[in-house]
């Protein structure tokens, strides 16, 4: 049995200009198979990182001659649902040259929609429902048997002998992430990854799963099987020792110069953050890193910001999404605007670059609401603002409410950067126009632009990330939002 983890040619978010990240989900699954089933051969082909076109990718796959190909991501940042048309297209091409190979997808977007996506995609043989970490290795193992018992694998959508899509039993979550081996970075072209157009030796990690807050719009839900008990809110994490071990490995063995921790919510527990600081100090590891967390947790741990900055925390993201109480309650954000404003100041005092996520496209949004939102955002004055246009993925709690507002079902645009829905008061076009306006407005404000591009207290890599946002604000972002140009 030979399993291939494939990243086919695909793009990146318009606002990131050129962003080629390692697929951390692939690295984790590859490590799991290697450790649990050493008899299975594991291969990796990151066609995007290697700059391969479709033909080169197919040639390489034919040469590898795998029995099972897996595609999938754990992170929304690869392109939200816009990854699906890419995977589907790749699968179609592969089946033309290797008709017998089995193709499985899973992870983000698929996790909550496995039977539906398998039904819609004849090119796929399997779609993982929920967490992939055990399911994919078990599938590989089962397929290596002469008479595989697919229905016995939990958390999987498959086709029976009549071609009917079936869903196996619910797969319970892994409780302790320390039970997993460290991701198999050695299989990946680690020197080829680029973050935000400028950062070489860039690595993304994923050291916790879930977020206890469970906002109603959050796309993190789509990693999980809806039959579970709100699995997205069941927070699990790697211990500080394991985190630091992984970071040390990345720095010492793979020359990582910037680590982007893509966990949706890293700072849930104070002890974990304290432990991380201690571990990084103990190992004397000096690598700049980014992580996403929630504002209330940061404020609870405000005394940790200084030591965190000392051990490399140079840039952090936290969510605001909206500013009016009604919308914040409707989406169950669990954060106040005052908390966000206070945290921006604390970050600035500690020379940590602040990135706020905010959204347009809530059902009740009208022009005034959106303009109020950017007005408030300007007053709060974070260093960067990651604007997301509401993308109503099936699997998020708000989906039923948003579905009637969908106007564009072309998944290539379901990436947060295109308007695919209207609101009760705004057409899809008006929403797109306002999004482009707001983003350009934010990234051309005199004073802010100079601060984020040139202020020496901020880490140079953060200034380069800011540069990418400034560069794309009036161009690529507007091209995606207003002109419907495809980027992922």
């Amino acid at each position, binding site marked *: 049995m030979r399993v291939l983890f494939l990243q086919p040619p695909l793009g990146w978010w318009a606002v990131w200009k050129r962003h080629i990240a390692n697929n951390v989900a692939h690295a984790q699954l590859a490590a799991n198979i290697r450790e649990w089933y050493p008899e299975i051969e594991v291969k990796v082909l990151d066609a995007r990182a290697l700059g391969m076109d479709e033909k080169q990718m197919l040639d390489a796959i034919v040469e590898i001659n795998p029995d099972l190909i897996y595609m999938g991501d754990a992170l929304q940042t690869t392109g939200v649902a816009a990854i699906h048309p890419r995977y589907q297209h790749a699968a179609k091409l592969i089946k033309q040259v290797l008709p017998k190979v089995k193709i499985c997808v899973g992870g983000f977007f698929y996790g909550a929609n496995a039977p539906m996506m398998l039904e819609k995609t004849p090119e796929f043989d399997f779609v993982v429902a929920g967490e992939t970490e055990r399911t994919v290795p078990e599938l590989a193992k089962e397929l290596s048997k002469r008479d595989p018992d697919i229905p016995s694998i939990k958390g999987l959508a498959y086709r029976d002998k009549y071609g009917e899509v079936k869903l196996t039993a619910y797969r319970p979550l892994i409780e302790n992430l320390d039970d997993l081996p460290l991701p198999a970075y050695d299989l990946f072209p680690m020197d080829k990854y680029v973050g935000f157009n400028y950062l070489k030796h860039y690595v993304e990690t994923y050291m916790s799963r879930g977020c206890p807050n469970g906002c109603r719009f959050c796309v993190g839900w789509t990693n999980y099987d809806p039959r579970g008990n709100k699995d997205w809110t069941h927070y699990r994490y790697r211990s500080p020792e394991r985190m630091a071990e992984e970071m040390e490995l990345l720095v010492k063995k793979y020359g990582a110069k910037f680590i982007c921790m893509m966990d949706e919510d890293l700072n849930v527990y104070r002890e974990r953050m304290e432990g991380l600081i201690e571990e990084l100090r103990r190992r004397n590891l000096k690598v700049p890193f980014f992580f996403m967390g929630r504002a209330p947790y940061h404020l609870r741990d405000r005394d940790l910001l200084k030591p965190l900055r000392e051990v490399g925390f140079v840039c952090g993201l936290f969510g605001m999404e909206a500013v009016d109480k009604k919308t914040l309650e409707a989406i169950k954000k669990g954060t106040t605007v005052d908390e966000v404003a206070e945290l921006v100041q604390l970050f600035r005092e500690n020379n940590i670059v602040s990135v706020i996520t905010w959204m347009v496209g809530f059902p009740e949004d009208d022009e005034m609401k959106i303009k109020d939102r950017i007005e408030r955002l300007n007053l709060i004055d974070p260093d960067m603002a990651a604007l997301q246009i509401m993308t109503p993925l099936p699997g998020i709690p708000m989906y039923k409410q948003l579905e009637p507002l969908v106007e564009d079902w072309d998944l290539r645009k379901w990436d947060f950067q295109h308007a695919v829905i209207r609101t009760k008061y705004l057409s899809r076009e008006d929403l797109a126009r306002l999004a482009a306006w707001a983003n350009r407005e934010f990234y*051309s404000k*005199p004073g802010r*632009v*100079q601060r984020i*591009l040139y202020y020496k207290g901020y880490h140079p890599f953060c200034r380069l990330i800011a540069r990418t946002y*400034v560069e794309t604000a009036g161009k690529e972002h507007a091209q995606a939002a207003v002109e419907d140009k495809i980027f992922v």
Partner: protein
Amino acid sequence: MMQRDVHLTAKDLLMSMQFKPGDFGKIAVISGQPQRVQMALEKLKNPMRNFSAFGYTLWTGEYKGKRVTVGHGGMYAPDAALITELLCVGGVEYLIRLGSCGAMTKEIGIGDYVIAKGAIRGDGVTRYYVDDDFVPYADKTLTTKLAETCKKHTHLGMIWTTDAILRETKEIVNDAIAKGAIAVDMVTSPFLTIAQLYGKRACALLVVTDNLITGEIGFADIRVFDAERRMIERGFDLIREI
């Protein structure tokens, strides 16, 4: 009927604002855009605000042992005339303007610099100061030194100053080009005219934000942000030479 020769002179205005001689330094670095003013202000040691009126603010501090005044120098001809005259009357001897312009030859790119040799007067305000055939020039010595500090992507030539950014028609623009203009702005003419009238040394360094020939617009282009930043450095490099 009004009996006084002039209703309000620059001196009257300064005095009404509790200005005292010596408040300004001998050197002034002025810009229209707030972010440039802010970046220039950050170069000063112990800056002190010593003029503030009509939304225009000037600070005086120290740079490499020299007293330097920085602040808002106006964005359009009338306010540029006002601030330039206040500075001249307030005792400034060297005026450095760090501004922006639109290029009028296709060879000049977004983010390049234009150093003003002189100005072609398309503005309205200088008619109140000089005759129609007056041609304002930048100070030669300062301009030469400025050119030495800039070097790369820098063009030296005449600046056409207009009051009507939305009336840069083909006829008007081509006429200005025929008269020798390589760039257009809204400030250089009164700035140089008034400095020259008062016998002060003035020069202007402008970053290119758009190009009238190619039609390229780059007001919020990263090349402009970067060039602006370097422009402030070059302006202060020049101070060392004064």
